[in-house]
């Protein structure tokens, strides 16, 4: 048996040897290619979509607003994001329990970008054997040209990735304009290079090392596994003892199993493992070995599936269970959280108020003897329509609320700060007391919110 052929990689981790996965076509690789196109398509195109005259998906950090199509989220809505992350984590657990490392093989950004970079490498340097030959060859103009072209392609793609990433946080059409004029701001430039650089290092050089050494999910996924979880597995009862044979020879007569020991399953593996040694945590479940083995089985005329998706129970010839306590619990929790999220987003209070005391003076005694405190009242309108608000106060005897105009107009998705003077009669209070300030939309009385503030009076 030969191991995966490897070459010295002169890159960042000098003594690590680069894996050249052999290219392979097949039904699972077609599915993975579709996944790459769909996911990268979403990533690169989504920031260009428009919604009501603005970018449809924009995490506007400078303005502290997140736009998601019709929805605008504010820092106060932070718990929705936490909620979403919990749902994402639970989905990962659920799908892992059902079908193993589906995420790793088909959807993980590390896999998706690595596939793309490997694809570009093949475009320039050719097949696996051509790549290895080129790596061994002495440096000639031809080699420099090919290596240079590959790097150029990689760097351009990584920069585009970084640009798109920043495009989620700053309007992408403006950003594109600034880039063509070389007038991007310092932070925009920095983050484009940072994210582009991270993509380049991860997808061009580190590749499977990220899964092996840096990914926590690879380590704890076994906690979600049970004997009914789909894994990629080699049927050693059918395959062993492995060995080469002449075409048409009867393996049983030679005492051989179905594995012809062609080592293609090892050559196509992007993490360089031998699936025939059993389940290993380096396996990212990309199913390349299944496609490779099926192809060989077709050629030699044996049934497919010597390497296949199966469960431990399936391998042992026992009954398989999709519905089991683990999957039922995950599914129930997931459904409850998803419904809860939708309900709470649709029922959230779309107005808010923030009362900030004026820093300059504790209080002011007016000529008529009344005591005045000044506040800055910030009215938050998260609704998609503009509203006029009335401000009222309570909590102290004879309290008067005074601000410019009868109502305050706040545009959709905007915050409006209003200087508000609160007066109470002389001797109504000594020291301090809490008061309530409330806002209410004049056209929609159900849109209301209130905030607490401290009123301070002389204590003599």
């Amino acid at each position, binding site marked *: 048996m030969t191991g995966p052929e490897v070459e010295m990689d002169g890159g960042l981790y000098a003594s690590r040897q680069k894996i050249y996965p052999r290219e392979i076509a097949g039904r699972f690789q077609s599915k993975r290619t579709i996944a790459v196109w769909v996911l990268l398509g979403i990533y690169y195109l989504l920031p260009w979509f428009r919604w009501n005259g603005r970018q449809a998906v924009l995490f506007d950090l*400078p303005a502290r607003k997140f736009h998601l199509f019709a929805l605008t989220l504010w820092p106060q809505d932070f718990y929705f994001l936490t909620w979403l992350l919990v749902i994402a984590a639970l989905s990962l657990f659920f799908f892992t329990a059902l079908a193993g490392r589906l995420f790793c093989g088909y959807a993980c950004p590390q896999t998706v970008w690595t596939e793309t970079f490997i694809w570009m490498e093949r475009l320039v340097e050719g097949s696996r054997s051509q790549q290895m030959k080129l790596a061994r060859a002495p440096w000639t103009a031809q080699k420099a040209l090919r290596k240079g072209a590959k790097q150029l392609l990689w760097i351009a793609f990584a920069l585009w990735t970084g640009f798109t990433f920043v495009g989620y946080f700053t309007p992408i059409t403006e950003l594109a304009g600034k880039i063509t004029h070389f007038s991007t701001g310092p932070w925009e430039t920095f983050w484009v290079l940072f994210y582009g650089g991270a993509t380049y290092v991860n997808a061009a050089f580190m590749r499977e*090392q990220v899964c092996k*050494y840096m990914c926590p999910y690879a380590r704890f996924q076994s906690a979600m*596994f049970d004997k009914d979880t789909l894994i990629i597995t080699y049927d050693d009862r059918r395959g062993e003892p492995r060995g080469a044979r002449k075409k048409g020879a009867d393996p049983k007569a030679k005492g051989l199993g179905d594995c012809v020991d062609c080592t293609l399953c090892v050559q196509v593996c992007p993490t360089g493992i031998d699936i025939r*040694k059993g389940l290993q945590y380096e396996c990212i479940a990309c199913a390349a070995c299944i496609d490779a083995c099926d192809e060989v089985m077709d050629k030699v005329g044996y049934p497919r599936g010597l390497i296949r998706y199966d469960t431990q129970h399936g391998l042992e010839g026992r009954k398989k269970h999709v519905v089991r306590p683990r999957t039922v619990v995950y599914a129930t929790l997931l459904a409850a959280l998803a419904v809860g999220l939708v309900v709470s987003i649709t029922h959230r209070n779309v107005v808010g108020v923030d009362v900030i005391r004026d820093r300059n003076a504790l209080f002011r005694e007016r000529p008529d003897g009344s005591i005045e405190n000044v506040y800055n009242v910030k009215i938050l309108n998260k609704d998609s329509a503009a509203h006029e608000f009335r401000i009222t106060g309570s909590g102290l005897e004879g309290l008067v609320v005074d601000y410019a105009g009868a109502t305050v107009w706040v545009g959709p998705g905007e915050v409006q700060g209003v200087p508000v003077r609160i007066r109470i009669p002389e001797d109504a209070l000594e020291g301090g007391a809490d008061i309530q300030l409330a806002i209410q939309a004049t056209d929609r009385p159900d849109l209301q919110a209130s905030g607490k503030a401290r009123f301070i009076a002389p204590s003599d």
Partner: protein
Amino acid sequence: MFRTHPDEYPARLRWPRLGQDAAIVIWPSFLVASVATMVCFAFIDPLLVGNDDYPPPAFASRMTGYAVGFFFFWLVASLSSLLSLYLVRTAHPEPPGTDEPKAEERVRSPQ
């Protein structure tokens, strides 16, 4: 569940120790710093940060505030990762046999 320990892998497929160590320090602290930055700035507006010596805003812009916060968290988390790694790497070796997977955790025998 998994039979093969990374140290049993062919040496040519293993990262050098320094590369592993760098990844173990930098990567988890990056993840933690990202989460910490999100939580921190969901509650704190950088333009309202300041004190008597640097009255608000202490940062030139929100983006500067976010970036300073992120790199601060990354640095702090890196130091923590580094210390943890140091303690793990310098610990007495486990008594032999403690790391062996239990029989029922084995998927199939390697043969």
